[in-house]
């Protein structure tokens, strides 16, 4: 039987790297084909070529046995492909119906025929078991439902091939389970699905076939029956991963960060952090586990002074820093590896040297009075580039010229260069290669051993488990459990992250 979709020798080069290297890949009708790979392995590039957003340098794309050249997303849609992006392409201020028909409106005279559109959407939703409120505004909906809207949007445009890009990244385990039910029903109705993920467990649970991408190359295909997590992981990273970090038992000292009854609202004014209290001691790593979007971002923002808390106290080594802004927190001895290095951590157009002093630019020796001391900055940058093994041609190169791993090293180096009492590390290794991850993990442990209290926030449970001396589980803005690092059991934490409270050691 002819595959619905086939790519042959698809190659895409970007300056300096080969993003996909002669990739061959087939998708059969009614199949769920998982594409597995680390961030940066080339999954997104491959999909963007299929979706017409990039033009391949070499190779062919065949749809139902016919070679096609896809020019842009509209062309891809016309050819029956639908993509659900990791970041939803929805307009929050429009209703579900308006979002779905956007660009594809049913027109009656000069007005939009909303009634007919709604009827069609409801039909689709019933057929595929996708429960969506057609008249609700998108910004009122939980992410799981928004994702369903995205799927209906693709189906509304008669998609036969659905590409789901990291669909579970933003979902709770329950929502992910609901999504899997939907995916299976889509499959039963004859749709073909490409499921992109770097999460081994869910790929094993849902896929018919699994293909693994590594550094732009397709390193192998397998089925869930033949594979297990360990074999997939080693295919992904090219060697058996040792995620265990070598570290001595923690020697916790006095309390250095005291968070009491903290309440924080998110951008939309909803309570994101509710009555959170905990203490962090010198020389320990406290990990905060939780599915993304359960208040971790807001908690970190409030502790580091980026946003104001509505209620509660934050004390750093006896000094009240609640709602005093970032400058006060930095002066009090707080370091912050931000969740999003492009957003907060770096000024991409600045040189590495300038980025290395971003949070210390106004203190000696980098500033003499109001004048910048460029010599001292260059010296500092030289030292840090060597110490943290930042791979760059020059400290004067723009930060934007660095790879993700090296950019993150710049951030980590800068923060650890100051004498810190507390380090807040949010998603410190997201999207990095294994080598950089190891290096950054070691740096964090070294900071702990020198007496810094480390607050680690990560969506990767493995990272939390391997680094933390104590683990707090966050769910819907609250800390619902505290577990000693040594006693941590991945299944139990997994349940807690989903809000299932068992019995035993809960805060």
């Amino acid at each position, binding site marked *: 039987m002819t595959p619905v979709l086939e790519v042959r020798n698809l190659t895409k080069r970007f300056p300096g790297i080969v993003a996909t290297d002669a990739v061959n890949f087939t998708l059969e009708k009614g199949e769920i084909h998982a594409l597995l790979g680390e961030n940066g392995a080339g999954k997104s590039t491959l999909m963007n070529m299929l979706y017409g957003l990039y033009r391949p340098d070499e190779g062919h794309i065949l749809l139902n046995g016919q070679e096609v050249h896809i020019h842009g997303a509209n062309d891809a849609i016309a050819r029956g492909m639908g993509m659900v992006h990791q970041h939803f392409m929805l307009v929050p201020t429009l209703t579900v119906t308006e979002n779905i028909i956007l660009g594809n409106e049913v027109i009656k005279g000069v007005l939009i025929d909303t009634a007919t559109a709604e009827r069609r959407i409801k039909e689709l939703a019933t057929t595929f078991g996708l429960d969506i409120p057609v008249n609700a505004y998108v910004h009122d909906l939980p992410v799981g439902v928004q994702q369903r809207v995205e799927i209906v949007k693709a189906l509304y445009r008669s998609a036969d091939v659905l590409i789901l890009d990291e669909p579970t990244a933003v979902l709770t385990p329950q929502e992910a389970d609901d999504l899997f039910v939907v995916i299976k029903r889509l499959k039963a109705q004859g749709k073909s699905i490409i499921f992109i993920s770097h999460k081994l467990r869910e790929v094993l649970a849902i896929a018919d076939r699994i293909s693994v991408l590594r550094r732009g190359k397709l390193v192998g295909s397998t089925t869930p029956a033949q594979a297990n997590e360990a074999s997939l992981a080693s295919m992904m990273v090219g060697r058996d991963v040792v995620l265990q970090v070598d570290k001595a038992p923690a020697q916790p000292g006095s309390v250095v960060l005291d968070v009491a009854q903290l309440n924080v609202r998110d951008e939309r004014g909803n309570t994101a952090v509710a009555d959170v209290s905990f203490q962090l001691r010198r020389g320990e790593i406290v990990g905060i586990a939780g599915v993304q979007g359960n208040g971790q971002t807001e908690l970190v923002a409030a502790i580091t002074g980026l946003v104001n808390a509505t209620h509660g106290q934050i004390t750093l080594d006896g000094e009240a820093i609640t709602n005093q802004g970032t400058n006060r927190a930095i002066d009090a001895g707080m370091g*912050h590896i931000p969740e999003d290095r492009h957003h907060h951590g770096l000024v991409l157009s600045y*040189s590495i040297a300038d980025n290395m002093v971003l*949070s210390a630019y*106004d203190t000696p020796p980098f500033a003499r009075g109001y004048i910048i001391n460029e010599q001292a900055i260059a010296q500092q940058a030289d030292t840090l580039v060597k110490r943290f093994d930042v791979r760059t041609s020059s400290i*004067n190169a723009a930060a934007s010229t660095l790879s993700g791993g090296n950019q993150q090293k710049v951030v980590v180096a800068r923060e650890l260069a100051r004498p810190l009492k507390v380090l807040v590390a949010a998603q410190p290794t997201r999207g990095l290669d294994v080598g950089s991850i190891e290096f950054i993990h070691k740096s964090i442990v070294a900071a702990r051993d020198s007496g810094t209290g480390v607050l680690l926030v990560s969506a990767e449970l493995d990272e939390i488990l391997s680094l933390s001396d104590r683990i707090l589980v966050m769910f819907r803005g609250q800390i619902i459990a505290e577990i000693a690092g040594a006693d941590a059991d991945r299944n139990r934490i997994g349940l807690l992250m989903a809000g299932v409270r068992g019995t035993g050691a809960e805060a």
Partner: protein
Amino acid sequence: MSTEHVPSTGAWRIWATTFLVPVLAIVTALVIGAVIIVLTGADVVAAYGGLFTGAIGSPRAIAYTLVEATPYIFGGLAVLIGFRAGLFNIGVEGQIAVGSMCAAIVGAFVTLPPVLHVIVAFLAGAAGGAMWGAIPGWLRARTGAHEVITTIMFNYIAIRGTDYLIKVPFLDQESSSQRTPYIATTAEIPFLFGEAYRLHGGFLIAVAATFVVAWLLQRTIVGFEIRTAGANPDAAHYAGMNVSRTIIITMALSGLMAGMAGAVQVLGLEHNLKASFSAGYGFDSIAIALLAASNPIGVIPAAIFWGALRNGAGLMQLNSGISINLINIIQALVIAFVAADQIVRQIYRIRTARGEGITLSRGWGR
């Protein structure tokens, strides 16, 4: 474009790549201008010859060009400082109006000893402009009101307001034209080569201001904060900078430059303030900041070019009968080509340098 990342291949190359596009933009605009002249059936040689001679054909022409360039240098710096912080100061026009009003009042109605009088009058003008810039900055920082909207509105207030002040309370009763009285001689910025050449000390102040701004942006903490707030305001906030304060400081500095423009025009050149005095400086200042590729030093040649066009236009019209408005067309084309540098790069096959570009402003409300 930005000097944040300096490759180690020598200063000359950087300057060449920085100013290549603006120079080619000017050339292209002049060529299109020539085509327009031909289409209207006039003599290109006579027209451009007149433009050239009128602009730099004699010592006096050069002096006049520099006189024309002086307010543009200040105005360009004003817009440029905003650009570097990611702010779009469209209010230069209004800030110049307020600055010139303040200078005119202090110059004409306050009695002070020589030297001191001119300094106080100049500073009054500068401070007036700074205040007029700082208010929209404060509104932006405090309420999030977009500075483009507020500065446009403040232009109206300033221009109508100064018009009223000139025509009613500060009108020179002994003059038939609508203007303020002449400033005291103690408040005049002296001419450099006598009155015939009109070139006054304000030009030197403008050049000095350019270097001060360059130094301020590149070598001081405030400059670092301004640049960081412009390049990535979230990172600036993260790094402990007070972004709101930086916005206000930037707008005040920007207004300060515009206020100086108004002050030197009154104290150095006009010696009084006429109703509807500074029409058009606001948009031209944006053009000059663009033409300077957001590099403070580049403002000087850009402003001189602008001044030359304005100064030479008269002789161009006289020689060839071409309307002065052709200059506006050429200027608009220059901005278009500088702003959309891809056009120029396509025409002349220049490859795009990596990592260049400056975010000039963001959309409404982030």
